[in-house]
């Protein structure tokens, strides 16, 4: 696979991360991006085929557990809001807004889509 982290153009745009076959149903994978400042960012990508948006991307860093682990959390819904539960201390983060349901914390949310079997993130 080609490294999609080589960023030469600073303009935000849809960039391909991986094939849609790399996604794991009802679970997460992680990806490494270089943001517009050229700094590494880790994101967690979740594939929930039975939910409204079907695919979500959020930051991989758990601000409470302070480790890059969110893609390894269990996904599901709480009162119809799609969420991931941190594998460390089990707080829920909304996949739509990035807000933590239990504490005053939030994680970033990234626009994501599947185009021609390609998973693309806007950054």
């Amino acid at each position, binding site marked *: 696979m080609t490294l999609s982290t080589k960023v030469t153009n600073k303009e935000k745009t849809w960039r391909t991360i991986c094939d849609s076959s790399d996604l794991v149903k009802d679970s997460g994978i992680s990806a490494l991006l270089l943001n517009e400042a050229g700094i590494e960012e880790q994101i967690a990508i979740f594939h929930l085929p*039975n939910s409204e948006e079907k695919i979500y991307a959020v930051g991989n860093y758990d601000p409470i557990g302070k480790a890059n682990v969110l893609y390894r*959390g*269990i*996904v599901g819904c709480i009162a119809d809001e799609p969420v991931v539960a941190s*594998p460390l201390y089990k707080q829920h983060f909304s996949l739509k807004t990035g807000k933590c349901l239990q504490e005053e914390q939030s994680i970033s949310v990234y626009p994501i889509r599947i185009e021609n079997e390609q998973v693309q993130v806007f950054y």
Partner: protein
Amino acid sequence: MNSDKQLLSKAKIVVVGNGMVGHHFVEEMAKNSDYEITVLSAESRLAYDRVHLSEYFGGKTAEDLAMTTPEHYEELGVTFKTNAKVTNIDKVAKFVSTESGATYHYDKLILATGSYPFVPPIPGKDQDHCLVYRTIDDLEDIANSAKVSKIGVVIGGGLLGLEAANAIKQLGLQTHVVEFAPQLMGVQIDGGGGRLLKSKIEDLGVKVHTSKATNVIEKGDSSRYKLCFNDGSELETDLILFSAGIRPYDNLAREFDLAIGERGGIVVNNQCQTSDADIYAIGECALWNNFIFGLVAPGYAMAKVAAKHIGGVTDANGEPAEFTGADMSTKLKLMGVEVGSIGDAHAKTEGSLTYTYENQPEGVYKKIVVSSDKKALLGAVLIGDTSEYDTLLQYMLNAIELPESPEGLILPMAADKPTLGVDALPDTATICSCHNVTKGDIIAAIDCGAVDVGQVKSGTKAGSGCGGCAALVKSVADNEFEKRGVEVKKDICEHFAYSRKELFDIVSVEKIKTFDELLSSHGRGLGCEICKPVAASVLASVWNDYILKKPHLSLQDTNDTYLGNMQKDGTYSVVPRIAGGEITPDKLIVLGQVAKKYNLYTKITGGARVDLFGARVEQLPPIWKELVDAGFETGHAYGKSLRTVKSCVGSTWCRYGVQDSMTMAIDLENRYKGLRAPHKIKFGVSGCTRECAEAQGKDIGIIATENGWNLFVGGNGGMKPRHGDLFATDLDDETLVKYVDRILMFYVQTGDRLQRTSVWMDNLEGGLAYLQDVIMKDSLGITDVLEEQMAAIVGSYQCEWKTTLEDPEALKRFKPFVNSDKGDSNIQFVTERDQIRPARGEEKIAVTIIDATEKDVVAEEA
């Protein structure tokens, strides 16, 4: 000084005897700090639980039975002397003195001297190996004597005699019971019940001789002694245990002129005062209303009354507390035979009528005694099946009017068998008589915030005595929860309105194989981190599929997904199975080599194996590849499944070992490894009663005996330690494994989410006795199925790491990023004591990998 004065002026209370009742008095009285309490005990140890004395032979130690400790008494500010028998009371000068001559002044004196076993005046009774059954010291003597004896006889076939007979049978002696009367347990049950009890006990291999009076004990022909009976017959024996009734220790009262009953006992009034108003008597030495109560609950009631009276505590109307008698109904299990006796078992009340049901083939006998107008229940006898005990007892205690045909209460198949709803009970109804807990007390506990039966029990102490009331406590509490609309919540989460057990049944009955099927047929929404692992565990228990198979993958906690425990920094631990803690030097070297190669922090765990910490996700497969190649398997340290079977070296090496605990531990660990359960399961196997493997603190504990294995269930370390309950004794290997198969499978099916076996036991309706019935007597008719299910699981075991390493799809999961081969730069270590540990926030170096073309921009910002 002021405070000194206060100290000096404290009234002095001296308590003679530190049995169960004397101790209860101390606890009650110590709540009031105006008194200085001194306890004088004739025994060599402080109070212990005499009611559960027989468990001493089942592996409980003196410490287990202890009801208090010197430290606890010191905390309460109580002075105490052991080996201090009181021999003198001076009622005028108000002091007592002990054998050694020490004197103690009192303002109030409490006699709690209990009773002693009566030994009939049979010539020859005072020889060695002629023993009684009352104290821990007695039990030590019995155990020593049993070591050099083959045959044992208990003289006396009452309740305690039968308990003693069971004990010497457990010690491996050929056992006889000799009873003077024509029937067993004459006090509690009638002739019909006695007959049945006798035949049931004989079926268990104890020979019962009724209507036999012993004339003399002589030197035996083939054994140490022989008993010569009045009918000319003889019985050879090596050990003789007298259990011919108890007599109150009223000698002090006798000698120092306190009123005594005609047939003994220190006469007390309703406040438990003797004929001297400053001297109280409580417990088994006290005679109230011409009656001695040989049970602990009435003794506790007396202790409370005396403490209140001394402290001047009165009720709402200004009346002093009063002892008003106590119910002597009993329910117990003698050598596995259920026996219940309620109220007027012998139908002595004038005009009373009886109904009897007897089923000889099944060994069940039931009788109820009702008033002449058939409206009130006066008494009952239940042998072989005491399931109606609670209901009948409540009918009697609360004078609840009987249904039209009272016989329906004991007839087996009565279609509309009247079961007494707990709603019908008044608030004053005693639910737990050991701790005198009423229905009102249970409601009060719920008012104060108890939210489940476990909390009700720990808050009120209900159920922590003989345990006989457990089922009733639960139904009263559940009924109360329901009334409050606090629906007794069993739903595991918002996606499934079912308990774990119900989901288990749904999955097995409807043959559901995936979470998606389960969710679409019985759930809603997308699921969550609660129901998914539950479903995964249930699916694994029922079908035992490889847990990372596609449909199950997303259900697992990260620990299960990555087959390791996630640490605080996102790395994992690596714990290979080391069955029984036994490991060859070669394998130990492999662990060292792997740890060194991957720079892993290495530690011997509390579970007696080796844990390697600090592995990054991407390192897990190569690490495990090396381990699996060297013959290691996963240790399931991440799973709600079998963890370790801790063992000692046992008879193979240890000079005290009586069985090969090591082989047993390894076999058990290999048998149950991989079994998924509501929570983790730990075993311990010890080679003798010294218990070096701490088996009693494990879910399944196994302790070697001379004759096999004692099995304990429901032990727990961790947050709320609990000793396991002695489940069965002297099992052979095969029976042991059979029982463990059944117990574990039953737990797997009925346990709640994240419920260890200890909590499961505490919440099991009917408690230990119920579990014993299900497992050993097959009362639910499910043991075959349980065994089959376990056999299927054992037969389909696979090492999850081995399977994972062979599956390229599964290995993909261990790649840190889908689009890069780099590792997580946030994982950093520092060195401490020559090994790595996760760097703390302030120790971390900010590694911001910057795209070469953009260096300047960032540098400017920084």
